[in-house]
């Protein structure tokens, strides 16, 4: 068990390419933290620095109170499961999983018990006597994961450990890994590009883009109050609708937010904080679930035309053309929409997200 702290950590490749830009972050003892971002955002570089596989260009990484910058990978007592498996080709699956215990001179009985326990959990107990080359990518990925889990280290690092599994198994493994982590209480740092994995598994999520830490918070904090437009667009499925509106003239301390002549909501002037001039642009974000359909024309709403409607068991997904551009809506099951039908849509006023058009930062009441 251990905590992990990053202080002003920066990573440059070849002196010029800035992969990780001045990140400070702490992961509490026993916490499950997801490092989430698109490919190239710096999440894997960050994890490799924690593991000791990459030098740190600037800053410090601590495990508990110990600065680890100059410790070797082996001295850090971290275990890793990688996207590209790193299995020993000449050893069997059993031999691969057992290896970390063998080098630690654990008893044969102990090794066997632990390998079988982990293999059963990952549904690979049928292939223990095979060689990695005889297995599919999904199996190899689980063997790599099993080898990390069997060690019971102070910190687990996982890099996209389930990304190559098929959708059904991925769903099962999400639940299994989360439950496992809750049971063994090991500090876990989990790298993924999949917002669903991060949301469903992590205690907290650190969202990265272009080497910069964008926001750290619980899944619900990040979902409900994204710090900027990037986080807003990256979290949630279907993704948030984002469009540009303009702010009308203030009247009695309140100003309308308009799309064309259609009023979408009325802003408290305290939100405007001087930055939003009359007629100025503002970015508006509305999640697909946060629209009301067929609001009355007197409500803050706009006309729209149904482009496509997709009926699923528990919801209807629709694409609409509106003055705000093309929108994706998620509506209750049974909502009857015909293609070409004209409707009125209103964003739920209490669920609207606003962003500064220049900086992309969320605008909030303070």
């Amino acid at each position, binding site marked *: 068990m251990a905590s992990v702290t990053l202080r002003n950590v920066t990573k440059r490749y070849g002196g010029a390419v800035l992969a990780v830009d001045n990140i400070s972050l702490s992961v509490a003892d026993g916490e499950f933290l997801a490092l989430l971002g*698109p490919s190239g955002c710096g999440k894997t570089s960050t994890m490799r620095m924690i593991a000791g596989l990459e030098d740190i260009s600037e800053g410090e990484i601590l495990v508990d109170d110990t600065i680890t910058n100059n410790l070797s990978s082996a001295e850090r007592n971290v275990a890793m499961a990688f996207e590209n498996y790193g299995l020993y080709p000449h050893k069997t699956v059993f031999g691969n999983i057992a290896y970390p215990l063998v080098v630690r001179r654990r008893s044969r009985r102990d090794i066997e018990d632990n390998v079988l326990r982990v293999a059963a959990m990952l549904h690979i107990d049928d292939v223990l006597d095979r060689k990695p080359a005889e297995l599919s990518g999904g199996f190899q990925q689980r063997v790599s994961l099993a080898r990390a889990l069997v060690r019971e280290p102070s910190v687990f690092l996982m890099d996209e450990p389930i990304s190559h599994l*098929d*959708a*059904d198994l991925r*769903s099962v493994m*999400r*639940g299994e890994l*989360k*439950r496992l982590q*809750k*049971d063994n209480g090991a500090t876990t740092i989990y790298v993924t590009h999949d*917002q*669903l994995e991060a*949301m*469903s*598994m992590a205690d907290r999520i650190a969202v990265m883009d272009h080497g910069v830490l964008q926001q750290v918070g619980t*899944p*619900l904090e990040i*979902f409900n109050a994204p710090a900027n437009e990037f986080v807003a*667009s990256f*979290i*949630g*499925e*279907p*993704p948030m609708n984002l469009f540009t509106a303009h702010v009308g003239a203030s009247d009695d301390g309140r100003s309308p937010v308009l799309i064309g002549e259609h009023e979408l909501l009325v802003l408290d002037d305290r939100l405007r904080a001087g930055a939003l001039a009359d007629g100025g642009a503002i970015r508006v974000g509305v*999640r697909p*679930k946060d629209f009301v359909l067929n609001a009355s024309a007197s409500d803050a709403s706009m006309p729209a035309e149904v*482009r*496509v409607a*997709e*009926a*699923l*068991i*528990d919801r209807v*997904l*629709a*694409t609409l053309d509106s003055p705000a551009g*093309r929108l*994706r809506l998620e509506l209750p*099951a049974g909502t009857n929409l015909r*293609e070409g039908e004209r409707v009125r849509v209103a964003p739920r006023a209490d669920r609207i997200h606003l962003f500064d058009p220049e900086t992309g930062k969320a605008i909030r009441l303070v």
Partner: protein
Amino acid sequence: MSQVELRSLTKHYGRQPALDNVEVSIRDGEFFVIFGRPGAGKSTTLKVIAGIEDPTDGQVVFGDQPMNGIPPQRRNVAMAFESYALYPHISVAANLEFPLKAPGRSIGIDERQRRISEVAELLEITPLLNRRPSQLSGGQRQRVSLGRALVRSGTGVSVTLLDEPIAHLDARLRHWLRGELRHYQQKADTTTVYASPDYVEAFAVADRLMVLIDGRVRQVGTPLEIQTHPADTDVAGMIGDPKMNLLGLDSSGELARQARQHGAHPAAATVGIWPTDAKLDRTQGGIPGTVYVVEPLGEDAIVRVDVPGGRMQIKTSSSQTYRPGEPINVHPAWERAHYFGGDGARIGGGAL
């Protein structure tokens, strides 16, 4: 465009049957989805329709014209397959133009340009038109490959075949394109056969679907028909997001007792309950269970609960918190439960 009929289609690779007596009639102008897990025979079906693979037995018929023995280039089929197969030495624009310039397709340059820009706009690849395929990411290549199939829509193409055409794109683009593909297909009115292992994608775009398991057709119907009347436990276990909960009814157990009390078919061996068709509470009654793990997804959360008969996934609001290991009662909406017999076949239930 035309109707496509598959008559007793069988395909063996060596002694392994990839397709086993597939029989289906795809209607003119229909958006038809082949839905199945990896290895079910989806791609093989498309390849046989395209003429890239010959069937071991059976026939492919376009309209009233048997296609057996007719080479792919004479079938007038537009295709986008998962392996992109772009021409590496020419630009994206030239790759898109290529199928429009093939011999026998007299499409003028203005019309070619119009089609290319329309498709490029749809697939968000307009800024890439002058690049070479080697300068593109995997997702961008996949869109060019898809564009090459779509660009021919409405030029007398018999059928458009799309094999997991948006599988490698990011979530935002996948969501947009799904709707857009459907819209585009309806506008162009081309018979389209689309293979996908993804429930949401398959059910969102299809007019009708064919569920393929181990090379055999298990069910053909509209998304609504399959969702409300899945033919058997195998089909039911493939649909939903999360998937339908299938629980064994051990005759002496509490689950079976409650199911019978709520009108379960006497021969039912398995009950199917949608994740949205069960409520959780801490009071008396219902099925006693234990919370396994909770996965928040924004406004909703998936709670996995161990009950007699299996582990359920229940979709609930994320405002309620549950701890792993906590005892909980599950209240299924029994009037909407599905029942399956000992052989897995549907025997009743599922009213909506």
